[in-house]
């Protein structure tokens, strides 16, 4: 079976370390998976968990958060704050059925272009294994989203239309 799934990944980078690591990976012509769409923040401490939830609800399959190594934050210790948010957010995501592996926290200094590139490629492969998330949308291979399983005795009682999209009035 051919796997044509290309994960969509949103990556948050900090202006001072990891964005420069990504920059370095680029200028050094290092090859890494092209699936990551990078968003530059001034600091990983700027990462509001809303951004991650928004990414998932808008169709991202994985979210990568990157920042300076512990102890090396440009703003003294905001990356520790990012770490604490990340760990709590991951627990909430797991509670909502999102695999823990769909979020990743990577520390990369401005000199670590190679690390940034390899971590990105690894993450893309991990997400590829997990498959599409497609949050709130009907899976393409599941037909119309209605339940045809006649043996389920509740099936007639439950409407199996599992899409979040609001009906547009005619």
């Amino acid at each position, binding site marked *: 079976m051919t796997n044509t799934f290309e994960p969509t990944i949103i990556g948050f980078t900090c202006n001072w370390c990891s964005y420069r690591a990504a920059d370095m990976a680029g200028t050094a012509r290092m090859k890494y998976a092209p699936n990551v769409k990078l968003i530059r923040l001034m600091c990983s401490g700027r990462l509001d968990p809303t951004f991650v939830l928004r990414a998932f609800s808008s169709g991202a399959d994985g979210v990568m958060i990157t920042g300076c190594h*512990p102890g090396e934050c440009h703003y003294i210790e905001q990356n520790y704050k990012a770490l*604490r948010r990340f760990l709590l957010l991951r627990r909430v995501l797991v509670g909502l059925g999102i695999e823990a592996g769909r979020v990743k926290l990577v520390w990369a200094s401005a000199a670590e272009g190679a690390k940034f590139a390899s971590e990105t490629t690894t993450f893309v492969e991990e997400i590829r294994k997990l498959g599409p998330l497609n949050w709130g949308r009907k899976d393409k291979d599941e037909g119309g989203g209605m339940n045809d399983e006649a043996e389920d005795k509740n099936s007639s*009682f439950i409407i199996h239309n599992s899409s979040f999209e609001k009906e547009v009035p005619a």
Partner: protein
Amino acid sequence: MTAKPKFAMYWAASCGGCEIAVLNIHEKILDVDANFDVVFWPVAMDAKYKDVEAMEDGSILLTLFNGGIRNDENEHIAKLLRRKSQILVAFGSCASGGCIPGLANLSPADEIVQTAFNTLTTDNPNGVYPRVSVNMPEGELHIPKIFPVLRPLDQVVDVDYYMPGCPPESHQIAAVVDLVIKVVMGEAQLPPKGTTIGAGDSTVCDECTRARNVKFIKEFTRIQDVAPVDPNLCLLEQGIPCNGPATRSGCNARCPSAGAQCIGCYGPAEGVMDYGARLITAFASVIDAKEPEEIERILDGIPDPVGQMYRFNLAGSLLRANKDAWKAR
């Protein structure tokens, strides 16, 4: 004499507490009766859906709609009342953000039905399950079908105003009733569409009188395990997960002033897109640890992260439901 403006109130997936809160405005309820013609209010008076269907579109001035949209009957009435009403208010936490009924979005609908009809403690020896239609000598009877997830009102129809609270505080309801009466008299203007009314713009912390110092904690503890709870110190600083920092003001910090933690019934504060995200940020900020293992140990003190972050807002949050619930097939 011109006819009085029409008023309606409806309950979808809710507990009925909102109706009690409305009656709890005491003698103000006489003002409602004096100024409005109550045309539809299933909990308080007899009316049929067909009576509402027969009304002219837009003929009801004010509809307070409480409860989330769990089944196709809820949805039908939501759309019907939207057509018939000039002002549709998502009244209470269920209609605004899903509230407790919205926590059912953590489980697939099949599981919910199983839990209701087939658990050890359920007396259902013949394995009776609901059926959408059943033939009786008098004719065919129908019950509503349930949706895979519960939706707040604004995910189904356009909503003019939101009024949060579980239930909304009576003094806030009274203030809103006063405002609408003034608008009818031509003495006041309605706020812009989409506004949250009957609540503040800030957070519960802002109304809370407990002392706040520098917040750093080494442990989260459930309030029942803290003895004694300091009556004057911020609960979060005592390690009690208190949802005040993310929750909209308007209740006068009722729970914290009574010695209980805020659980977030007034929903997200102004400008907050996702309540849980704001609360994650707030909780992460007070944890006094830098090592992942130590942070994880402290986080173990919040045994139910989703319940803590989204008790009143899951259905209205960015992710809305557990994956198993909306993926259910």
